[in-house]
């Protein structure tokens, strides 16, 4: 099998070949490292790659297999990690200047699980600074480019992880989703991304933006691959007391069931508030097509209303910055990270903290810290943070009511396809509005998936989002798997086969392959 073929394999396919001894992890990892070297100068999905270390890990995985060790299903399959997760001995920047040289002394729990399962780590992926953004343009290290059109954004904040899998630089990646940072990049890059139920995956070692909203999740090119990774990283962690004590839901079995076209009598709800005005026609066309396919598979579809969702953006932009303002207070130049002396005046603790934070944080981060500090201030707390928490309760109730009638909710993942780099950079509000569809799941703590729904009139990918009740992540994989199988059959192959060839990437792309 040629190196190009190896990078086109899904994680599940690669895992089978590894298990059968047809390929080695070293070959598979090397093929991805070569691919990164070839196309990443154009895509910039990675902030840092660790070729030597990845190959060492691959070699160790091969040796463990040769020794007959009991291995995880994904052992030997390489993975990319969003740079917001602490990796022991590997610089973790969170896309920020303030952590330019920070080398964590410990692994995030999910990273520890990934290492224990012997998945070679290819590198750390680009992101909006501290996961604040929807375009990866707020990275202090330059934006990531959408593999479908290098002039467009790959989504954010996890644009690096999504672009890495969409550009076949990695079969798997880890992301984090606070308001859509896994799902929206998946949608605009034609990949799959899942935000698990809040607490379903440990947050220990995830550098926090908004602790009550953040959730780690899988990124891949297929529903089955995300399920396999979800099963690997999920489960209770005593280091994260907000993690659920339930066993990991049977997501792999559910994905397989869906892929086989079995969705039983799945009841699908269309959320009235998540569609219509402001949505791109091509996005809505693909959405309606997805609904038709689901109905053909035996699903019943009905419209449900979640009236409180119209307040979700407002609530989100109070809760998220409030928590972020506190979470980011620790970056003060005292113990690690950037330390700068003030340009003039004496260097005191206060002036050094001020100078470092001023120079080390980008504008979007400062904007949110200021917003959050204001919202939590004495006299404003009740009106802002307090009210936002009440809205959150209302949204949870709306979802509960909806889930009394249907098993899953469905909507476009994002109102539009990928916009041009720089297009919304000067208009934060326009950028925020793009998250209207993904934010409610974070506020309610429920799980969501984005699966490719085809291309819009502009030839760019559209994502279809499913939402399920808390702890019912399996429904997402069943519905997502069924939709993916039906669409792939209609397209005659995965959507990403239609992506244009990348500079430096050879002839692998599209119909030419």
């Amino acid at each position: 099998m040629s190196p190009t073929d190896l990078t086109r394999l899904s994680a599940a396919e690669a895992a089978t070949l590894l298990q059968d001894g047809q390929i080695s992890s070293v070959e598979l990892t090397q093929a991805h490292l070569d691919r990164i070297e070839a196309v990443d100068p154009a895509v910039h999905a990675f902030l840092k790659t660790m070729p030597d270390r990845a190959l060492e890990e691959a070699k160790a995985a091969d040796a463990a297999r040769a020794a007959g060790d009991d291995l995880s299903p994904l052992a030997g399959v390489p993975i990319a990690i969003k740079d917001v997760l602490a990796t022991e001995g590997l610089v973790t920047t969170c896309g920020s200047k303030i952590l330019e040289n920070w080398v964590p002394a410990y692994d995030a729990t999910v990273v520890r699980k990934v290492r224990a399962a012997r998945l070679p780590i290819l590198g750390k992926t680009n992101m909006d600074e501290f996961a604040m953004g929807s375009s990866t343009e707020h990275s202090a290290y330059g934006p990531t480019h959408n593999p479908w059109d290098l002039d467009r954004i790959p989504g954010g904040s996890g644009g690096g992880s999504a672009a890495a899998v969409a550009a076949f630089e990695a079969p798997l990646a880890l992301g984090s989703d606070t308001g859509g940072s896994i799902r929206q990049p998946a949608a605009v890059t034609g990949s799959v991304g899942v935000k698990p139920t809040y607490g379903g995956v440990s947050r220990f070692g995830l550098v926090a933006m908004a602790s009550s909203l953040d959730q780690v999740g899988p990124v891949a090119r297929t529903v089955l691959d995300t399920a396999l990774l979800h099963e690997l990283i999920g489960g209770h962690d005593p280091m994260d007391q907000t993690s659920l004590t339930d066993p990991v839901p049977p997501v792999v079995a559910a994905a397989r069931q869906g892929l086989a076209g079995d969705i039983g009598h799945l009841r699908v709800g269309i959320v009235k508030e998540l569609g219509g005005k402001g949505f791109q026609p091509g996005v809505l066309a693909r959405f309606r097509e997805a609904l038709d396919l689901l109905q053909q598979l035996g699903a019943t579809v009905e419209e449900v209303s979640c009236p409180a969702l119209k307040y979700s953006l407002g609530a989100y932009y109070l809760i998220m910055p409030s928590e972020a303002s506190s979470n980011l207070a620790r970056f003060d130049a005292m113990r690690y990270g950037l330390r700068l002396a003030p340009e003039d005046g004496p260097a005191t603790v206060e002036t050094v903290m001020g100078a470092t934070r001023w120079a080390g944080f980008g504008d979007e981060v400062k904007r949110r810290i200021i917003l959050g500090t204001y919202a939590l201030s004495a006299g404003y707390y009740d009106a802002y943070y307090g009210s936002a928490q009440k809205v959150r309760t209302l949204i949870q109730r709306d979802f509960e009511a909806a889930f009394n009638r249907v098993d899953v909710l469905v909507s476009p993942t994002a109102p539009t396809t990928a916009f041009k780099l720089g297009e919304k950079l000067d208009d934060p509000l326009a950028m925020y509005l793009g998250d209207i569809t993904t934010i409610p799941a974070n506020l309610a703590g429920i799980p969501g998936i984005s699966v490719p729904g085809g291309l819009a009139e502009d030839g760019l990918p559209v994502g279809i989002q499913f939402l399920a009740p808390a702890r019912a992540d399996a429904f997402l994989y069943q519905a997502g798997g069924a939709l993916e199988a039906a669409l792939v059959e209609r397209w005659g192959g995965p959507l990403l086969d239609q992506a244009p060839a990348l500079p430096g990437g050879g002839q692998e792309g599209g119909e030419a392959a």
Partner: protein
Amino acid sequence: MSGDITLARFDDVLEHFDPVMGIEVHVELNTRTKMFCGCATTFGAPPNTQVCPVCIGLPGSMPAVNQKAVESAIRLGLALHCRIAERCTFARKNYFYPDLSKNYQISQYEDPIDQDGYLDVELEDGTIFRVEIERAHMEEDAAKNTHVGGATGRIQGADYTLVDYNRGGMPLIEIVTKPITGAGARAPEVARAYVAALREVVLALGISDARMEQGSLRADVNLSLRPKAADAAAQAKVPFGKRSETKNVNSLRAIERAVRYEIRRQGALLAAGQLVTQETRHWHEDSEETSPGRSKEQAEDYRYFPEPDLLPIEPDRAWVEELRAALPEMPAVKRARLKAEWGFTDREMLAAVNAGAVDLIEATVAAGAGPAGARKWWLGELARVANEREVDLVDLPVTPVDVAQVEALIGAGRITDKLARQVLAGVMAGEGTPEQVVAARGLEVVSDDAALLEAVDAALAAQPDVAEAIKAGRVQAAGAIVGAVMKATRGQADAARVRELILQRVGA
């Protein structure tokens, strides 16, 4: 510092003003690990050796609640007659300071675990003063700053500051009183007695070492003055004055002094028509005065909000009741009970308490001695020896069982009180149990009449004139013969029995 501060006379201030206090006590728990991580809590370890990603606040690290600390907080709340919250949350207190690794402290804000209790405090004259408890909550300690350079060891003028994160994240309980009113001139005494009583409760529960000199029990005293009213009802309607909060008050004596000092300082200001500044002040042990710290006029806005990294704590009610049932008897309650059981007077009990002898007497009684006898030895001969050796009673090399045995020997007539002192001296010299000392030193009272008669006859023969006098009815003359017999038996005879035998012999 004292140069520009005038102090009023204490009595003068109290004539015109009513002091109101609020006391905040931080108790560092003696759990094996920190409040939110698994780091050790050993005191005095080399700086920054008991730290981990959690307590130095590395990005991505998360707190996990120490269940033992929650248990300690509940037990303290129960001992202070508090309501234990059905559900309570942690909150973040946000402020920037290098001793705070996350630049926020995880504490409790709106719903502390212990709410609305009280502690009855016994004053020196036996009066009981009830101090109402507002709340007790759990939180993590800040790291320890050491300011290097400059003259004072304080931040002003220091060249640099060293931070020891060993203390960062140590488990604390902060106990906050409601405003303490009605103490009047006894405010300094009440403040001291309250902290002493709280310390005693904490020690009885075994939840902290409560060593003020090591900082494992720290008190901040808020004090304000308000105009004195005609009676209690009228006084209650007078609003509180501006308060000062005195920190660093790290001994019981200092608490009393600090309250007294603040009453006199504020009194002088008010008498001169000036205003008291609402501020934090620091107590200086050396000069016995307070100096201003940061002004609370520009009070920091801590931007409290619920800690999203921790779940609310909902103590299981059955568990709370189990903890309540297993609480040890509180020291003050125990003292009242023992006083009644032993039939001690107020003065006797107070003496026992002040000598640190209550537990020793209790154990001696438990070993079979009578309360009066136990008290007599511990507060008499043994207190004298302890004083001589400059040690605490409990540190003397003699046990309550030894003392009970001595009492038993006296009761059986085998030794006299006078001999008992020698027996105790022998025990403390490491010669064994009282029985062994009596045997080894041959201290037993001579109770063999034949042996005594021999000595009596010898004494009478040696002093025939005295014998005659006794025979003639001058019974008191027998004293000389008794003395001679006691001398001959090296004090081991029972003097009363000797006297009987003498009278019998001369036929008086």
